[in-house]
C-alpha cells in the first residue's frame, strides 16, 4: 500500500466557498502535494447543517481515499474513530472495497479477494424473502431525487480556457477504458467523465469518484447528458445530473474542479431482482457459500447502492439504524476472521435424539440474558391473544393459556390471519424517506415524507412496506419452566401433550385441495414399491394426508400415548406406537382409516415413534424405502425437539426428511445454548428463508457472534411469528399465574457423620489430599486430572455410604441376604441351647415381644423408648439399635471387648443383633405380630436420615408417595435394601430399564394403594419428561444443585399437594465445598458429576480442585 493510495480527500461544508474547496488529487503522480491537506479530515463535516445549506443541500461526507483505506478501516488497522462520519451504510464496506479495487489498480485486488470467499452473500434464490412487489405508487414521479453530492477534487486533464464554467452541466459517463472490460461491465459501474485518467489511472468509476479519487471534468463543454447507473442486465437504476460548481476560469492540467452531482432513482430500481432458477438451487447444495456470478453482481449492486446512499447522506429512518450499522461493519470484518476462529473451537460430543452421539463445536454460547431478550418480543403480544375451544372429542378441560395456545396453533395451521399481529417490519429492511429536492433554496416542510425501503443485505428496494412474514404451517411451542442451566426438557406438566392433543382433535381438516395433484403424485411414487395391494392405491391416491406423526424421545412414547388416550373420547382417536422390534406395517395401519366414506366416523390417526426409530428408518430409507418417509403426514410433531438441534446429526437429517403439511416443534428450549440450535428447528419447519443454513448463518449467527444486536433482533422477529412460549410463572389475561402450582417446601438437612463414618471419610480425604498435594507439587494436576476426579467421586460416595467405597471390607451391606428376617423361635432355641437356665427368661422375653407391640420399653442406654429395638441374641437383652451400635462402635474403636450393656455378656457383634420390626398395620393379617430381623445391614448417616424421615411421614400419612433421587445406582441399591427392610413398597427407575419396564415401574408406582410407595430414581434416567405428580415428597440424596429438573418431575401441573423437598448434606465433607464451587458455576463440577472424566483442564478447574481440598 503506498502513500498515494491513501491520500485522503477533503471535505466540504459548502461548495461555494472557494477557500475551502481544496481538492486533493490522490493520484500517484501528485501524491506529495496531498500530505499537508490531510490534517483534520472529517471534522469539518456537520451533518446537522446539511439541510440548511442553501445551495449545496446535503453536505457530502466524503470518504477518504482508496479502497485500501477502507479496507484498513474495516480491519481496524486504520483509525476507527470515523464514527462521526455519517454513513448510509457501512455494511457493504468490505464488498465495496473489492469493488473499487477491481476497478482500480490490480495490486489492490489481492487483499479483498480473500475476504470475498468468506463473505456469505445471500444466494440468489433467497430473493424471495423480499415480500415487496414493485409498486405502482403513483404519487412518486420517477426519476425521483434522492440526494446530491460533491466531487470536490475533480481535476482537469486539459488546460485552456472556455471549456467549462460554473453551473455548467457536467456530463457524467462511464470510463471507456477497456483494459478490463468484463469486470467493468459486470460491475455495472458508470464512470465519470469521458476522459481517461492520466498516468496510471486506468479507469475511473463512479464509485471511485465517490471515493474522491481523481475525477476529471471534461474539458469540453458538457451537455446535459445523463450517465446511467447500469446493472448487468443493462437496466439503469439511477441517473446522475452533474453540475460544475467551481472551477478556475482557465483550466490547467490538474486544476481542481468542484462538481456537484444530483442523484435520481429510476423506477427500475424498485423492480425486484429476479430470483434465480432451480438449477442454482441444486448447485448451492454443493458449493454452499460460494457465489454464482449472478449473486456476485447482486452483491455488487447492493454495495453500490449502499455506497451511493452513504455518499448522498441518505440514512434510514427505521429498521437498520446507524448504530447497528456500525456493528455490522465490524461483522463484516469479523466475517473473514471467523473461519480461522471456528477452527479453533473445541469439539465435544453431545448426545442427541435417542443416544446418538455427535461431535459439536463449542460455539459461543448464549447467555441467559440474551435468551430473555430473544424471547421477549415473541411473548409481547401474548396476553391479549384469543382463545379457542377444543373439539368435542376432547375430554379434558383446557386452561386459559392452553386455549390461547390452541387458538394460536390452529390459526397457524389454517393459515388464517396471524393470531399474533405481526406488524413488525421485516428485520432485514430499512426505511428511508425520499429527501425533498431543494428548489430554489427552500424546502417544502409540509410535504409528507415519501418513504421507500431498502434491504441493505440484498440491495433490494421497495416502495411497499415489507412486512415480516411467515410461510410455513406450524411453529414452535416452547413450554418450559423457569430457565435454568441444567434444563433438560420442557415441562410436560404444562400440558404440552394436552395442547397438541387438542390441536390434533380440533384441526382435522385436510388442507386446501389445491395440493391434491402433487399429493397423489407422491403417492404414486410410493406405489412403485408394489408393496400395497392395488385396491388400496386408489383410496390413498385420492385422499389427502390425515394422520399425525409424533416423534418423541423413547422414554416419553408411552406418556404420549397415555395422554392422548386420556384426553379423547373413546374411539375418536386411534393411536399407534410405532417403535421397537415389531413395528406394524405403517401403511396398513394408516389405510385402515383412509376410506373417504368413513372419514368422518373413523378415528383420527396418530402414530407415535421415537427419534431412534426414525433415524434408523432413515438410514434404511436410503437403500430401499421406509413407510415413514413415504407417507405424507398431515402433521408432524417433534417432542423435545431440541433432540435434533444439531443439524448434522442423523436424527436431524431424518427429521428433515419427513414429509408433512404441518409441522410443530415442541420443546422447552428452542435455543439450548447456541443460536444455531434454533436453525435446526427452522429447518424442520421449513421456515424459509431461514431454513437455509448459509442464510441463517450470515444474518443471525455471524452478527450475533460479532455482538451485533441485529442478530438477536432478527431472531426476535422470526420467533414472534412462529413461537409460542409458555412458562410456569407467566401471567394470563387476568394477571394470574397461568399455572398455579402448590407450594414447594425445600429444606436442607445438615447431618453429622457417625464417628465411624467420620473416621473412614477423613482417612480417605487425607489420602486424597496428600496425593493432590503431591501432584500439585510435581505440576501434574492437569495430567492427572482424571485421577483426581476419580478420587473426588470416591469421596462423594464415601459421604453417602461407607460401603460404596469399602466393598472388599464389608460385603454384607452390598449383598444382604434376603430381607434378613429371623424366626423368633429359632432365636429362642439358640438362646436356650446356650444357657438352659435362661429358659424362663427367654419365654418371658418372647411373651414380652408379643405384648410389647404397642408398649414402650425403655432402652437402658438412652433411657428413652426404644425406637428400633434390637435384641442381643446371646442374652435377649434389648436396646435401641442406634444406642447399641454406637456403643459397639465405641468399644471397637477403643479396642475394648464388646459386651451386652445390660449383662456384660460378650462379645457381641453388630451383625448378630436382631431387630424387632413391627409389621405395618396394613400388612396381611397372616403375618406374626412381630418380625425379627438380623442386623446385617449397615446403614449410613444419610440413609438413616432418609429412613427416619420416611417413617415420620408414614406416621401421619400412611399412603404417601415419595421419590428418592441419587446419582449413584449403587447407592440406590442400598436405599432399596433399606426400604425393603423397613417394609416400604419400593420401585426402581434407572437407565438400565427398557421402555416397557420403565413404563410398568411408573404405572405400578402410580397405582392407588393404602401403603406408602417409594420410587428410587437415578438422576440421569429421571431427567426427561417423567410425570410423577402422584408423589409429593422428594428426597435428594446427593447432587442437589442439579435438583431443579428432578424436583420438577414432581412439582408440575397436576400436582395438587404441597411438595416437600429435602436435601441431605453431611457437614464438613466435600459436599459443602461442592456447594461453594457450584456458586462459581464452573465446568469441573458439571463434569465431575456427569461422571465423565475427560483429560482436559483449565485454570478454573484447577482452582476448583483447590477448593475441593479446602485451600481457598
Amino acid at each position, binding site marked *: 500500500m503506498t502513500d498515494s493510495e491513501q491520500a485522503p480527500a477533503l471535505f466540504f461544508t459548502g461548495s461555494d466557498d472557494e477557500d475551502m474547496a481544496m481538492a486533493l488529487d490522490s493520484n500517484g503522480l501528485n501524491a506529495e502535494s496531498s500530505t499537508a491537506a490531510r490534517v483534520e479530515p472529517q471534522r469539518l463535516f456537520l451533518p446537522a447543517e446539511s439541510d440548511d445549506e442553501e445551495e449545496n443541500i446535503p453536505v457530502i461526507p466524503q470518504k477518504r481515499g482508496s479502497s485500501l483505506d477502507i479496507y484498513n478501516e474495516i480491519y481496524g488497522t486504520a483509525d476507527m474513530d470515523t464514527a462521526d462520519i455519517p454513513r448510509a451504510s457501512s455494511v457493504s464496506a468490505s464488498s465495496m472495497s473489492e469493488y473499487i479495487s477491481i476497478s482500480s489498480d490490480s495490486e489492490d485486488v489481492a487483499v479483498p479477494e480473500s475476504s470475498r470467499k468468506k463473505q456469505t452473500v445471500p444466494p440468489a434464490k433467497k430473493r424471495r424473502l423480499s415480500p415487496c412487489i414493485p409498486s405502482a405508487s403513483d404519487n412518486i414521479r420517477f426519476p425521483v431525487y434522492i440526494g446530491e453530492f460533491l466531487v470536490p477534487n475533480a481535476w482537469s486533464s486539459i488546460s485552456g480556457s472556455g471549456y467549462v464554467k460554473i453551473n455548467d452541466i457536467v456530463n457524467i459517463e462511464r470510463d471507456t477504458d477497456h483494459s478490463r472490460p468484463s469486470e467493468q461491465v459486470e460491475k455495472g459501474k458508470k464512470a465519470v467523465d469521458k476522459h481517461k485518467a492520466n498516468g496510471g489511472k486506468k479507469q475511473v468509476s463512479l464509485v471511485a469518484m465517490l471515493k474522491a479519487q481523481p475525477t476529471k471534468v471534461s474539458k469540453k463543454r458538457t451537455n446535459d447528458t445523463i450517465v446511467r447507473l447500469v446493472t448487468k442486465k443493462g437496466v439503469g437504476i439511477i441517473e446522475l445530473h452533474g453540475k460544475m460548481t467551481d472551477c478556475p476560469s482557465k483550466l490547467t492540467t490538474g486544476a481542481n474542479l468542484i462538481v456537484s452531482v444530483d442523484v435520481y432513482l429510476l423506477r427500475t430500481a424498485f423492480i425486484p431482482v429476479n430470483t434465480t432458477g432451480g438449477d442454482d438451487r441444486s448447485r448451492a447444495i454443493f458449493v454452499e457459500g460460494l457465489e454464482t456470478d449472478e449473486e456476485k453482481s447482486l452483491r455488487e449492486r447492493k454495495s453500490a447502492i449502499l455506497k451511493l446512499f452513504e455518499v448522498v447522506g441518505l440514512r434510514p429512518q427505521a429498521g437498520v439504524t446507524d448504530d447497528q450499522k456500525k456493528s455490522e461493519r465490524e461483522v463484516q470484518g469479523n466475517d473473514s476472521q471467523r473461519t480461522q476462529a471456528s477452527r479453533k473451537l473445541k469439539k465435544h460430543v453431545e448426545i442427541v435424539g435417542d443416544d446418538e452421539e455427535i461431535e459439536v463445536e463449542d460455539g459461543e454460547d448464549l447467555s441467559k440474558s440474551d435468551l430473555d431478550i430473544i424471547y421477549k418480543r415473541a411473548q409481547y403480544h401474548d396476553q391479549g391473544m384469543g382463545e379457542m375451544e377444543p373439539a368435542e372429542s376432547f375430554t379434558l378441560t383446557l386452561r386459559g393459556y392452553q386455549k390461547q395456545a390452541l387458538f394460536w396453533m390452529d390459526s397457524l395451521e389454517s393459515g388464517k390471519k396471524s393470531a399474533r399481529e405481526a406488524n413488525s417490519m421485516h428485520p432485514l429492511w430499512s426505511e428511508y424517506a425520499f429527501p425533498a429536492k431543494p428548489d430554489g433554496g427552500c424546502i417544502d416542510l409540509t410535504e409528507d415524507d415519501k418513504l421507500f425501503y431498502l434491504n441493505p443485505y440484498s440491495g433490494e428496494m421497495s416502495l411497499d412496506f415489507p412486512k415480516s412474514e411467515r410461510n410455513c404451517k406450524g411453529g414452535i411451542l416452547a413450554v418450559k419452566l423457569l430457565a435454568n442451566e441444567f434444563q433438560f426438557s420442557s415441562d410436560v406438566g404444562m400440558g404440552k401433550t394436552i395442547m397438541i392433543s387438542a390441536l390434533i382433535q380440533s384441526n382435522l381438516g385436510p388442507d386446501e385441495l389445491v395440493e391434491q395433484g402433487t399429493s397423489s403424485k407422491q403417492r404414486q411414487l410410493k406405489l412403485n414399491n408394489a408393496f400395497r395391494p392395488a385396491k388400496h392405491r386408489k383410496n390413498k391416491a385420492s385422499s389427502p394426508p390425515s394422520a399425525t406423526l409424533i416423534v418423541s424421545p423413547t422414554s416419553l412414547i408411552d406418556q404420549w400415548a397415555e395422554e392422548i388416550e386420556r384426553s379423547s373420547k373413546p374411539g375418536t382417536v386411534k393411536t399407534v406406537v410405532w417403535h421397537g422390534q415389531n413395528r406394524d406395517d405403517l401403511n396398513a395401519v394408516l389405510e385402515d382409516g383412509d376410506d373417504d366414506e368413513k372419514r368422518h366416523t373413523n378415528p383420527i390417526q396418530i402414530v407415535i415413534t421415537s427419534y431412534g426409530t426414525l433415524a434408523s428408518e432413515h438410514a434404511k430409507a436410503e437403500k430401499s424405502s421406509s413407510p415413514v418417509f413415504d407417507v405424507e403426514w398431515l402433521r408432524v410433531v417433534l417432542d423435545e425437539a431440541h433432540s435434533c438441534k444439531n443439524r448434522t446429526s442423523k436424527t436431524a437429517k431424518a427429521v428433515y426428511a419427513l414429509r408433512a403439511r404441518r409441522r410443530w416443534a415442541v420443546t422447552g428450549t428452542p435455543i439450548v445454548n447456541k443460536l444455531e440450535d434454533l436453525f435446526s428447528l427452522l429447518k424442520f419447519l421449513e421456515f424459509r428463508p431461514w431454513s437455509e443454513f448459509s442464510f441463517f448463518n450470515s444474518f443471525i449467527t455471524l452478527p450475533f457472534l460479532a455482538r451485533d444486536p441485529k442478530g438477536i433482533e432478527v431472531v426476535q422477529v422470526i420467533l414472534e411469528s412462529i413461537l409460542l412460549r409458555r412458562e410456569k410463572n407467566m401471567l394470563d389475561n387476568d394477571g394470574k399465574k397461568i399455572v398455579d402450582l402448590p407450594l414447594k417446601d425445600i429444606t436442607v438437612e445438615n447431618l453429622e457423620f457417625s464417628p465411624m463414618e467420620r473416621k473412614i471419610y477423613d482417612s480417605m480425604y487425607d489420602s486424597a489430599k496428600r496425593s493432590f498435594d503431591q501432584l500439585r507439587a510435581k505440576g501434574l494436576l492437569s495430567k492427572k486430572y482424571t485421577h483426581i476426579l476419580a478420587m473426588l467421586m470416591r469421596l462423594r460416595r464415601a459421604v453417602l455410604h461407607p460401603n460404596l467405597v469399602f466393598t472388599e471390607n464389608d460385603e454384607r451391606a452390598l449383598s444382604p441376604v434376603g430381607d434378613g428376617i429371623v424366626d423368633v423361635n429359632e432365636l429362642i432355641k439358640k438362646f436356650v441351647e446356650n444357657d438352659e437356665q435362661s429358659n424362663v427368661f427367654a419365654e418371658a422375653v418372647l411373651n414380652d415381644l408379643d405384648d410389647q407391640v404397642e408398649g414402650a420399653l425403655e432402652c*437402658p*442406654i*438412652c*433411657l*428413652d423408648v426404644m425406637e428400633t429395638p434390637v435384641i442381643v441374641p446371646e442374652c435377649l437383652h434389648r436396646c435401641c439399635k*442406634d*444406642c447399641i451400635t*454406637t*456403643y459397639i462402635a*465405641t468399644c471397637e474403636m477403643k479396642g*475394648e471387648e464388646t*459386651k*451386652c*450393656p*445390660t449383662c*456384660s455378656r460378650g462379645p457381641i457383634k453388630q451383625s448378630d443383633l436382631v431387630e424387632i420390626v413391627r409389621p405395618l398395620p396394613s400388612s396381611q393379617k397372616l403375618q406374626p405380630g412381630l418380625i425379627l430381623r438380623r442386623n446385617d445391614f449397615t446403614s449410613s448417616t444419610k440413609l438413616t436420615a432418609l429412613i427416619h424421615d420416611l417413617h415420620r411421614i408414614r406416621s401421619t400419612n400412611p399412603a404417601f408417595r415419595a421419590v428418592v433421587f441419587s446419582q449413584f445406582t449403587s447407592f440406590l441399591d442400598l436405599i432399596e435394601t433399606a426400604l425393603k427392610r423397613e417394609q416400604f413398597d419400593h420401585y426402581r427407575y434407572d437407565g438400565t430399564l427398557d421402555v416397557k419396564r420403565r413404563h410398568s415401574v411408573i404405572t405400578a408406582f402410580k397405582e392407588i394403594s393404602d401403603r406408602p410407595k417409594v420410587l428410587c430414581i437415578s438422576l440421569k434416567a429421571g431427567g426427561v419428561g417423567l410425570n410423577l405428580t402422584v408423589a409429593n415428597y422428594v428426597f435428594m440424596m446427593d447432587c442437589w444443585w442439579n435438583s431443579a429438573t428432578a424436583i420438577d418431575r414432581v412439582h408440575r401441573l397436576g400436582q395438587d399437594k404441597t411438595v416437600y423437598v429435602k436435601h441431605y448434606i453431611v457437614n464438613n465433607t466435600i459436599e459443602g465445598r461442592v456447594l461453594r464451587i457450584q456458586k462459581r458455576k464452573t465446568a469441573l463440577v458439571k463434569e465431575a458429576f456427569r461422571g465423565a472424566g475427560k483429560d482436559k483442564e483449565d485454570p478454573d478447574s484447577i482452582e476448583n480442585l483447590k477448593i475441593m481440598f479446602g485451600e481457598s
Partner: protein
Amino acid sequence: MRLCIPISLIGCSSCTQNEKRIIKETERLVADPAPGITASPHDDNLRYFDVTIQGPEGSPFQNGVFNLELFLPEEYPMAPPKVRFLTKIYHPNIDKLGRICLDILKDKWSPALQIRTVLLSVQALLSAPNPDDPLATDVAKHYKENEEDAQRVSREWTEKYANINKGVN
C-alpha cells in the same frame, strides 16, 4: 434433694441423644432419689453434679455425710462418669485425693449403668471395703493387718471430717 434444671434445656429439641439421657436421669434422681444419696447438677453445667452420700449403717462411716463431685464426660453414657470424694475419708479403695477404685468406673462400665447406680455402688463400697484391690496402699495394709484399728481410724475421720453436725469437712 435440690434440683435446678434450666427450663431452656428441658425438652430442648437441639439436645443430643446424650444430653437427653442426662436430663432424663437428673429428673429421675429428683423424682425418685436413692436413699442416703443426693445429686444436684450445677446451674451452669448440667454435667457437673454435687453429690452427698451418707455413710451406710453399720459401717465405720455411719453417720457421716460425704461430699463428692461427679462429672459426666462428653462421651457419657458410652464412657463412665468421673466421681471423686471431696470429703477426706479413710478407706482402702479411696486415696488421699478422693479418687475411687471401682471397676464400674473403669473397665466394667456399661452404658446401661446410670448416675444412680454408680452412686449406689460407691455407697456399697463404703460398706464393703476391698483391701485386696487397694488404691490407698497404707490404708489397705492397715485394714489387712488390723481391721479393727483401721475401722477405728475410719470412724475417727468420719467424726472429724464428715460430721454434718460439726459442719466441718
